[in-house]
């Protein structure tokens, strides 16, 4: 592929992935309104999968052909910017969404309003894609809500299931609280700097005069923004919704929220803090690096410790997802100015990419177990490998890769994160992460042990009677292959990620 010499023209074409997603969401609505009563499960799933997958291909092509190279393409007077980081994250979101759409066919069989489900998934993905490109606090907020509202609906999608509805309600309430905090934070920042555009905020703060006069106000605003991000990324103390929502929601939705939605939270956090509040400028007033260090340590420790005591596999995965948010927070917490910032930030991005596959895969495996009506606890998984060995190999890959063993890409991405932290002089952060990682091996291997070493409990009959769900099974396999391949092939993505991180960091003064 030849790198394009000039940026894409006209500019708005750089938003093609988001446009493709939006169009496909409309197509889903259209199909549903033409034929609302018929159940065209396959057609709807196909359209949604094709839509997300084609957005993924476009993002991948853009990424590799250098559309977002350097400072990227600025759209709508700088409200949106499509750069390497935006495209990288778009790739993560759309690939996870494609897996989810593929995996949902059998899971949703027999439920109402399947078109609604798929259009919500596609719309949420559109929101994420816009979040990745959002370059002003206004677009950040709008796109965040464009993601959040469909998410609430998705969690509560199983209308007749108490757990699903309750989880959706809680998610919505906590979300409303967080959005309020976030919006208030935005208003404070605007009040201090007089702008919503991220680069303009940075230049308003650059002189130091504003900070001297209104530093306290800005500090409160920035911490409130941290709160908003913490909600979306399920970081402590805004994580309370996560275990309940993930457990109650349909398993593919849990996969979607814990992989893609979390990554979306991180992309705006990465961009807002590195572009609008360069740490060199604001360190004296609000040392957000320290704030993220605290959050990282607390989040990963709480997530892993809580995961270790769960009996329910899905809930264990929910807490492990909190723990992984803690690891990725290192991407911001190690931007100490020492060492190489691009490695730290890039490592966070790479971990989210790998996590997108291995965590989605793990949740989809749980979805498959639910489809087989195996049960939810570790004991229920006993002897699963005797009936479904290939799927269990895939699950083993996910578990060990999540723990950071060199069987999948999770090993290298964690290695980059820890190495970045050490390089940035916060070796203690890497140490805490390593201890947590070791602890996580304990509960991940419990799943593996149950599947391979224990005797079946006689609850595996569903595998024979219900058979293999084609879409779900292939999504699990695709995720497993991708996880394994990301070990040798991570080089391709790591270069892109480091370059993108470098471009974002260079925007500072």
């Amino acid at each position, binding site marked *: 592929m030849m790198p394009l010499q000039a940026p894409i023209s006209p500019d708005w074409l750089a938003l093609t992935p988001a446009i493709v997603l939006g169009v496909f969401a409309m197509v889903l609505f259209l199909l549903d309104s033409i034929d609302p009563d018929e159940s065209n499960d396959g057609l709807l799933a196909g359209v949604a999968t094709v839509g997300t997958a084609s957005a993924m291909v476009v993002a991948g092509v853009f990424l590799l052909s250098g559309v977002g190279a350097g400072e990227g393409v600025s759209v709508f007077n700088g409200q949106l910017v499509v750069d390497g980081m935006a495209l990288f994250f778009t790739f993560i979101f759309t690939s996870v969404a494609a897996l989810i759409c593929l995996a949902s066919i059998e899971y949703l069989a027999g439920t109402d309003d399947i078109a609604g489900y798929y259009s919500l998934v596609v719309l949420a993905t559109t929101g994420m894609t816009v979040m990745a490109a959002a370059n002003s606090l206004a677009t950040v907020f709008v796109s965040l809500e464009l993601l959040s509202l469909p998410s609430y609906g998705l969690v509560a999608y199983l209308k007749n299931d108490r757990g699903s509805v309750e989880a959706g309600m809680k998610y919505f309430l906590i979300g409303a609280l967080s959005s309020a905090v976030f919006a208030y934070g935005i208003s404070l920042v605007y009040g201090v700097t007089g702008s919503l555009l991220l680069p303009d905020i940075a230049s308003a703060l650059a002189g130091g005069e504003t900070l001297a006069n209104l530093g306290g106000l800005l500090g409160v605003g920035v911490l409130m923004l941290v709160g908003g991000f913490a909600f979306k990324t399920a970081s402590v*103390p805004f994580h309370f919704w996560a275990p309940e929502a993930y457990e109650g929601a349909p398993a593919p939705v849990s996969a979607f929220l814990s992989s893609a939605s979390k990554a979306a939270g991180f992309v705006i956090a990465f961009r807002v803090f590195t572009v609008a509040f360069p740490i060199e400028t604001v360190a004296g007033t*609000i040392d957000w690096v*320290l704030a993220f260090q605290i959050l990282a340590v607390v989040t990963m420790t709480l997530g892993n410790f809580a995961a270790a005591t769960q009996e329910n596999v899905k809930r264990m995965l929910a807490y492990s997802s909190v723990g992984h948010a803690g690891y990725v927070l290192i991407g911001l917490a190690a931007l100490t100015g020492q060492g190489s910032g691009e490695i730290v930030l890039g490592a966070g991005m790479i971990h989210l990419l790998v996590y997108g596959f291995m965590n989605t895969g793990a949740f989809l495996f749980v979805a498959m177990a639910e489809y087989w009506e195996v049960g939810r606890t570790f004991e229920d998984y006993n002897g699963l490998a005797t009936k479904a060995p290939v799927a269990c190999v895939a699950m083993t890959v996910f578990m060990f890769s999540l723990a950071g063993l060199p069987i999948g890409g999770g090993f290298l991405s964690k290695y980059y994160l820890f190495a970045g932290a050490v390089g940035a002089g916060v070796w203690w952060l890497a140490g805490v992460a390593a201890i947590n990682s070791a602890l996580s091996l304990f509960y991940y291997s419990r799943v593996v042990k149950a599947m391979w070493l224990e005797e079946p409990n006689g609850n595996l009959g569903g595998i024979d009677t219900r058979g293999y769900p084609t879409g779900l099974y292939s999504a699990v396999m695709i995720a497993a292959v991708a996880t394994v391949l990301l070990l040798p092939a991570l*080089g391709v993505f790591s*270069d892109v990620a480091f370059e993108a991180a470098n471009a974002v960091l260079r925007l500072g003064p």
Partner: protein
Amino acid sequence: MAAEGGIFTFAPAIAVLPFVSFLIALSAGRYMPKKGAFAGIAATGGSLLLSLLMVAQVASGHAHHMELYTWVGGEGVPFELTFGILLDQLSTLMLVIVSTIAFLVHVFSLGYMNDEGEPGLPRYYAELGLFTASMLAFVFSDNILMAFMFFELVGLCSYLLIGFWFRRSGPPSAAKKAFLVTRFGDYFFLIGVVGIFATFGTGMFGGPGVEESFPVLAEEAMSAMAAGEAMPEAVTTFFGLSPGAWFGVLGLLVLGGVMGKSAQFPFHTWLPDAMEGPTPVSALIHAATMVAAGVYLVARMYGFYALLPTLLAIIAFVGGFTALFAATMGVVKDEIKQVLAYSTISQYGYIMLGLGGGGYVAGVFHLTTHAFFKALLFLGAGSVIIAMHHNEDMWEMGGLKDRMPVTYYAFLSGSLALAGIVPFSGFWSKDEVLYETLVHGLGGSPILLGAYLMGIVAVFFTGFYTFRMVLLTFHGDPRSDLAEDPEPVRWNVKIPLAILGTLAAVVGVINLVPVHAVVGAVPEFLHDWLFHGPETLNGAHYEELTEQFAGYSAGAIPGLGGLGTLFASAGVSLAVALAGSALALGLYRGPDPAEHTEKLGALKTVLYNNYYQDEYQVWLAQDLTEGTVAGTAKRFDDGVVDGLVNRVSDVSLVSGYFLRRVQTGIVSNYAALITLGLVVLLVAFGIMGGWFGGVFA
């Protein structure tokens, strides 16, 4: 890269072809005629052709380096881990050797394995293919990490092949021993690899187009220190050691892997046991792959070792001692493959002696000739073993000369080469090894004379055990019914023997040093070949390095001059070899030779038991390590470590339960906790950042 690379573009195929044959034999071998043998033969034949093309290309002055894949790397990462191919004079030569022998071993296996109706043949050919592929990839590796990876794969494959007959009792245990002993050495090698990366930031060997290579960086550091300047920035040493001392540590660590693989004292114990594998595999292991990998690595990074006189002396002494030590054990063995096993250890000792004694060309020369004559001897022994229905005891043989003439003459050719009798190939190369060590010993490094002395004494034993083996096997009257009426062998055994028999006799012409000294018109091909390698990877450069850093210079026996010394050395080694052979002829000639080992008295027991090497190593491993050290470690582990871990897991479980209690399921609690958390953060950062003005100041 591809455009200018020309024929080099196909270089990866040299290793990929046998790998494909591995895949084919593994997946479809069952359904193929000859169970996958033809895939292996075609693949190794293809590798051989490509290797020859590479030699031709390199001969026209085009050493080549290419990078295939960057595995870990990027702008901010301190070093790159890559896969690449280095084709220079040394590696292409070795590629030809390895692929030739692998090819012949595949053909021979048709006779040894297929015709004998062995089960599990697809597995055999698959493992053989992977073995060849790993060794070929090891040979053309352009950096030490890649070399290490394939070094390990070679070790794994030899484990699989030695244990091929895993249902018998001997092979699995022999395989395990080979694996563990070499792994012990490789452990040090691995640390050495990490050390090299940490020290130099690169593991490249060098070659055209390579900007930074660790031997060159080491050389620069040593020169800078010698001149009293600051060290180059790219080099970091550790533990406050001077570059010389630290590089010595690194060199020793890598040498651990070398000595394990090349079966140098005291890591030689695995090799005689490895005879439990099928004989063609022994040929491959001894001649071209596993064992050769160790010394090849020394030759590959000779630019590094040449800087370190202590290391060179250690290599020379280990080599000389191993040569002598193994040769003395070879004289009492009763089984034909055992004699050959000890001769392998001994001959690799010579190669080490040559490399350590400053004879880079001599070492590589002996590696080359040995590859051919030792492959020949093993395949010859394999032919005898087929004929004897898998009885390997030489005292049951005798008189096979007339019954299997092709095998006899081929084997005799290999034996004359092994014993070092002029004009067979082994004479020229062994003589050069000894000569180089002698002149450097005389020229200011007297310590090498000790190693030389051991080498020359070993020549006597070599001649003795070689001819004892030939006489017992082929001469005299048949001593058993099997030997009376041996099973005939077919073309697929005879042709490899004939080819190798010829090679073993004549391959010495590639470096006729003494002849060249008298008649200048006779070229020293190998010498010229290796001296014209790429910059920093050629013999001339190594000679400068050994002279500058190790103080090696050529001396001469007083009163004889250079030429005189050359001939005196050749004369002495030939005379000693002839003396050893003559003693064997005297003792074991005649129709019904007697066992003379009784005359050795108590020494015989010691030799039969291989100097109790196995016993003391078992004691080290079992009583000392498992008993004392492991016992202490276990007490520490149970008490301190487990105790600590248990406390930690107690704490984490308790706190986990606490966390579960916080997660009440009531959403208003969550909202309260979130708000509280945010307020705590706000207050803490507010105080720190001084947002509240003078209130808390």
